[in-house]
């Protein structure tokens, strides 16, 4: 394990580590453009030049391996001068676009100028080379003048998606980034191009001119789009989510996420959110307070006793699932979770990048907690035969299944926890308003059996509550109160009941999640259809 010294700090690293990686892992910032921890090294920008003892010329930190006894100075006079002049070169033809460029606030040029530049310009505006601006590439907008030719986009397309959309064209001062014939970028990972571009050359079409990033507050969470569980940041301002972007996790999604997940932020703040409880009166729906609706639902569950059925949703957090299970067990009702699409294997990929076929974030959590008991078909049969007097749904998926319509019609009372309005909710008799993933604290278990934390980013609309909190309200009314008033407390109870999760708490899960072993003997294997 070679030991080196960077800016006076002694650092030990694994063999094969570059200087810039070693520095980054120990909080030492080396300015750069073309280096990216999840892309192959290119070494074209020359910004990360550092002074290394015994080497007469400055070396690029991104492509120099750490050797035993190496002494590096990132802020020596020569290094500082190199950073400044490199930046000056890169800015020679850069347009004065900051007021109209979305990248402001997360721009490497701006940040590097303040940290490593602070010089006066020598270039006249009229002398700058002009290039193409506002080229519509579909989900991405290209502004060639702003490009610093770092080739991150080219390397992304080559290594991650394999689509090779971008290439450098022209020569010298007129070199530009381009797609072939300006064709749009047509894969499902286009959003990452805007993330990977250190400047405002490639920007998100959806986010264009929407919000200045310095107003945004970032919250750590996990995308609910599929069983991969890409780590994300939820960027919001004043309680309104403005965008999602990937949060780096080497073991799950590196620095990427797919475009479906990215776009899912729009569903959070829709006006079609269920924000209040309602129950079916004699003729019409009547809007009621959540407490009253819970009274009604609990009453019907109590009457039904074991002639009740509970369908958990793999959209729910582990905390949601746990309390729901307790609810089912409180009255001895039937319990399962497989609704909607036929069960897909949790680990099956949809493409060769990130997406998985299971478009639910917490199927693995359902499996780990042993929620696959009665079998959905068995439950539906019981409904058809009139044996189910109360059916409680943790999500509305079953209400949308055509094959379930007849079964539902034979159930005298159907309660559903719903996040969004839809015609399917007509089939229920009570609707409880539920919070979505970005509005709750909780955990998902992804396809790797990695527990990952969601942090609450925005408030749920109106009276909507986390699903676990609704279930706690029902338990309380069934005479079995739960000693938990927060997701953290529910999790503490959960880990006592799920042997594989024993000893874990939110702190142990941390920011990057905690993976559990995928033992073949473990009951929590992928479900068979």
């Amino acid at each position: 394990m070679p030991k080196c010294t960077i800016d006076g700090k002694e650092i030990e690293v694994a063999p094969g580590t570059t200087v810039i990686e070693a520095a980054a892992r120990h909080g030492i910032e080396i300015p750069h453009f073309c280096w990216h921890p999840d892309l192959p090294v290119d070494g074209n920008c020359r910004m990360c030049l550092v002074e290394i003892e015994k080497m007469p010329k400055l070396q690029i930190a991104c492509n120099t391996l750490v050797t035993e006894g190496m002494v590096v100075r990132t802020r020596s006079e020569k290094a500082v001068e190199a950073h400044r002049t490199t930046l000056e070169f890169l800015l020679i033809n850069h347009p004065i676009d900051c007021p109209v460029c979305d990248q402001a606030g997360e721009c490497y040029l701006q940040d590097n100028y303040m940290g490593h530049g602070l010089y006066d310009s020598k270039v006249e505006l009229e002398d700058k080379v002009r290039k193409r601006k506002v080229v519509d590439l579909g989900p991405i907008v290209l502004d060639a003048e702003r490009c610093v030719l770092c080739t991150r986009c080219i390397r992304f397309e080559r290594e991650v998606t394999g689509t090779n959309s971008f290439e450098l064209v022209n020569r010298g001062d007129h070199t530009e980034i381009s797609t072939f014939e300006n064709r749009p970028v047509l894969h499902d990972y286009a959003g990452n191009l805007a993330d990977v571009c250190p400047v405002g050359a490639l920007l998100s079409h959806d986010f264009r001119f929407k919000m200045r990033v310095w107003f945004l507050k970032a919250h750590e969470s996990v995308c609910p789009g599929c069983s991969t569980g890409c780590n994300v940041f939820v960027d919001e301002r004043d309680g309104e989510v403005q965008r999602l972007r990937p949060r780096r996790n080497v073991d799950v999604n590196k620095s990427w996420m797919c475009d479906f997940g990215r776009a899912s932020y729009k569903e959070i703040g829709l006006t079609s959110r269920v924000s209040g409880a309602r129950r079916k009166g004699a003729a019409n729906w009547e809007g009621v307070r959540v407490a009253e609706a819970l009274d009604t639902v609990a009453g019907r569950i109590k009457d039904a006793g074991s002639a009740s059925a509970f369908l958990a949703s793999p959209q729910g957090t582990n905390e949601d699932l746990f309390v729901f299970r307790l609810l089912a067990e409180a009255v001895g009702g039937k319990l399962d979770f497989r609704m909607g699409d036929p069960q897909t294997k949790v680990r099956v990929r949809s493409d060769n990048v990130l997406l998985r076929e299971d478009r639910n974030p917490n199927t693995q959590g359902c499996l780990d907690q042993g929620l696959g008991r009665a079998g959905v078909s068995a439950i539906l049969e019981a409904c058809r035969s009139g044996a189910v007097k109360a059916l409680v749904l943790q999500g509305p998926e079953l209400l949308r299944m055509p094959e379930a319509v007849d079964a539902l019609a034979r159930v005298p009372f159907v309660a559903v926890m719903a996040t969004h309005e839809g015609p399917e909710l007509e089939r229920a008799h009570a609707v409880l308003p539920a919070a979505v993933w970005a509005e709750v604290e909780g955990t998902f278990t992804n396809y790797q059996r990695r527990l990952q934390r969601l942090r609450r980013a925005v408030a749920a609309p109106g009276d909507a509550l986390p699903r676990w909190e609704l279930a706690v309200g029902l338990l309380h009314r069934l005479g079995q109160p739960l000693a938990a008033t927060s997701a953290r407390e529910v999790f503490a109870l959960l880990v006592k009941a799920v042997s594989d999760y024993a000893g874990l708490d939110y702190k142990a899960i941390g920011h990057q999640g905690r993976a559990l072993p995928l033992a073949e003997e473990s009951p929590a294997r992928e479900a068979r259809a």
Partner: protein
Amino acid sequence: MASATEVAAPPAGVGSPAVRVLRESLGDQVLKVEEFRGDLAITVARKAWVKAGQLLRDHPELDFKLFLDLCGVDYLDKDGRDERFEVVLHLYSVSKKHHLRLKTPVPEADAKVDTLTGLFKGANWFEREAWDLYGIVFAGHPNLERLLTHDEFVGHPMRKDYPTARRHVLKSPKERLLHVPDDSEHVLINIGPSHPTMHGTFRVQALLDGETIKDAEAEIGYMHRNFEKMAEERTYWQIVPYTDRLNYCSSFMNGHGWALAVEKLLGVPAPPRAEAIRVILSELSRIMDHIIAISTNVVDLGAITPFFVMFRAREDIYDLLEACCGARLTVSYVRIGGVAQDIPEDFEARCRKALKSVREIWDQGNKLLTRNPIFQNRFKDVGVVGREDALSWGWVGPCLRGSGVAYDVRKDHPYSGYEQYDFDVPVGTVGDCYDRYLVRMEEMQQSMRIVEQALAKLPKGPVITDDKRVALPPKSEVYSNIEALMNHFKLIYEGILPPAGEVYGYTEAANGELGFYVVSDGAKTPWRLKVRPPCFNIYQAFPEMIKGAMIADAVAIMGGLNVVAGELDR
């Protein structure tokens, strides 16, 4: 930022008698000694709090008799701290010319610390404010009640987890401030809050025996806007307009003090021309403030003419300020690192003309008042405050100097180039209203003297630092090259990023030492900003001063203290 060639600095507090004395007596209860930008800060354990204060005050080598400030700080869950809160005390030794910061950590679960009211009279209101805003209990405090927020307020607003926008409506104001026995024959009256003699909204409840005040209690906070919490969510620049609204009678001086505090934190000085401009405008503002103090005070006594005469001088000064920055009252002219723009070309000529007019007006005011028998009757030997009390209350400025203590920050700790100007500091002998009047009148003369010298010596050069991390680039650059544009962008949306650390910056404002205690964690907004408002300590003494006096005397005293609500309540 340490470089490879930097020599290791000596441990903090080396050579400081305060550190030595405290360590000798308290041993390991002295938890930490820090030195940053010339400020000495000593942290002691809670149980040594009063003992430390007493040693600092009474030890002959230390003599920290002037009680400046006491406040709370909420560190929430910052790394490296076991306790959530900190109580911070600032003291000054007039004889040794030394400031000192004493701190003690206070845990959230047992948020209590012993009161210092037994040592310093001034501690009373400061501890009430820390209780009000932070929920820290001061054991042994005679009346630990809310001070700046009203009695129906719920929560402690300066805590980091208290949402800035949450408000509480007061449904029924507190009728009784004083406890009066039912069979009392005395009359209880309110003086204020809406009374012309209460310059600004202040309320005093007085228990009267005829016209003599037997007991009095003050209620403040009518103008509390929680500027300090606002400051925690504003960049260092964005705070500048807020400072205007502290002592708005001399608004430029607040900005001056703020800029100097931040420049101290940054280690970035303003260029000489900027400092000279600041001195000129600060002294002119001092004249304006003293005119208000004096002329409105005598209006309360029935002398209207001096008000009309002397306010004319304010108009001349307002015209000068307007020529510099476009505003008369809330000027926002100062910038971190200098001033916003250069003074106009004809400034010197206009200023000299204004000074001539101010001198004439001063003469008229002087003729109307100083030897006026009615005035002398109302002011002489009224509201006497002795040296010891003044220091214990934490009095500063003309009020302190009226009581015979010759402490003026401009002389004792010169800033902005004051050391190059010749001026005297008038000091009283009796400590009555008349002395405070005389001090202010003479200070106006000295201010004019300073302005003339500053004008004569006014250096050429830039009016703002050329440090690109602090000052905006010129607009001509911003619109024509990318470097200046990016610089401008970063400074606006991110602002100045000072190093982590804390400083106490102080200047001689019109009412005395105006301090800004700034705690920075390296972010673009300050973690904590405590304004050390001179008239807070001064006004705290008022209820005690008027006990045994007649109402008419209370009126005479009030104006002479020059309490400005914007500074008092923040």
